């Protein structure tokens, strides 16, 4: 048998034997995390991996970018995602692949007892292959972690800018801190959603606590006001400091269609009048 085919041969012929040997090695290792995954699930993942590996290896193991390797890569991506969610570390996840080396090498040695060259080349082939697959698993894990983190950040943003009900029909959104484009969009969308939920007629967007406003943020603010109007509510922007007013004018942003007030209190009074609410004696004096 040509040296190049030894690996394929072993994977296909000894699939049944490799599974329990590999499984036992994984279970006795220190990256198994039996607190996170039951043995049955690990067995199933291992079995599937071996099967897919044998199938793909038949077409050659030099180049992993071909379509023959897509299925096993998708499988590994799935394992990486689910293990990340279960709480495995990147190392523990990649070890799933690397741990196959030992039982596989044992089999390769047994298969080529007299042919040193065939053994050497098949061992090399196997180690390169499992290294690539193990690294791939770690990469996918990393990307998934980044996605989870950015999603958590977004959710945190939503929670950190609560919309307040000031009065019947009047909402206020006090914005604090620097606004970037993404945060502004999320916050504005949640304001519009609150308007629908509470049936508020007026929403006051207060930017007293915002040090600077750039063009993108100003545009998002204006689009939010326009969207609220389309929906049937109205917006007042309050807390525009002189510096921000200058920036806005310099940026060429047109605020003529929007009611603006210097303070939240002023905006609140206007809102009360517009919604023709009963003013308590103290305020209407």
């Amino acid at each position, binding site marked *: 048998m040509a040296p190049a085919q030894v690996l394929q041969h072993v994977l296909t012929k000894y699939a049944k034997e490799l599974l329990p040997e590999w499984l036992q090695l994984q279970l006795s290792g220190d990256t198994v995390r039996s607190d996170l995954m039951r043995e049955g699930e690990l067995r199933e993942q291992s079995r599937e991996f071996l099967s897919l590996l044998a199938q793909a290896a038949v077409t050659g193991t030099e180049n992993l970018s071909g379509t023959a390797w897509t299925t096993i890569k998708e499988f590994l991506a799935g394992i990486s995602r689910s293990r990340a969610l279960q709480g495995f570390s990147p190392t523990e996840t990649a070890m799933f692949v690397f741990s196959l080396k030992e039982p596989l090498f044992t089999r390769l040695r047994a298969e080529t007892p007299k042919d040193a060259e065939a053994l050497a080349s098949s061992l090399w082939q196997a180690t390169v292959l499992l290294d690539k697959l193990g690294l791939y698993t770690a990469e996918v894990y990393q990307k998934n972690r980044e996605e989870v983190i950015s999603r958590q950040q977004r959710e945190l943003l939503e929670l950190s800018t609560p919309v307040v009900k000031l009065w019947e029909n009047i909402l206020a959104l006090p914005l604090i801190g620097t606004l970037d484009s993404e945060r502004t969009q999320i916050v504005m969308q949640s304001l*519009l959603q609150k308007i629908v939920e509470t049936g508020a007629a007026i929403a006051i967007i207060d930017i007293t606590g915002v040090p600077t406003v750039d063009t993108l943020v100003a545009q998002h603010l204006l689009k939010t006001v326009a*969207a609220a109007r*389309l929906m049937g509510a109205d917006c007042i922007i309050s807390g525009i400091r002189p510096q921000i007013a200058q920036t806005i004018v310099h940026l060429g942003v047109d605020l003529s269609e929007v009611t603006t007030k210097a303070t939240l209190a002023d905006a609140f009074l206007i809102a009360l009048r517009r919604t023709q609410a009963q003013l308590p004696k103290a305020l209407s004096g």
Partner: protein
Amino acid sequence: MDRIPILKLDDFLLVTIQVDMHDRLAMQLQDDLTARIVAARARGVLIDISTLEIVDSFIGRMISNIAGMARVLDAETVVVGMQPAVAITLVELGLSLEGVRTALNVDKGMALLRQRTYEESRI
């Protein structure tokens, strides 16, 4: 659905757009509304789009047409229940629904229509 049902609420008519509209259905709705406004002597039309996840220029045109036709018959049109994602998209799209007032829900829409009726009756 063959035709969009039209409900009568006091002096007003309520139409709920729930399905994907196409030309035939839109024409049918406009015809039916014209007839009902006259028959019921309705002073206003409420178009409920609260279940519409997409409003494109076709729907926009249909709403404008309905509003125009209703105005000729001395009825005012109010669109209610626009979803936030739809509103944001329409702003981006540049569609402005000229000549059509909007309200957050049917109750507020009716209040808007009643106010106009009240104001006119005092002339």
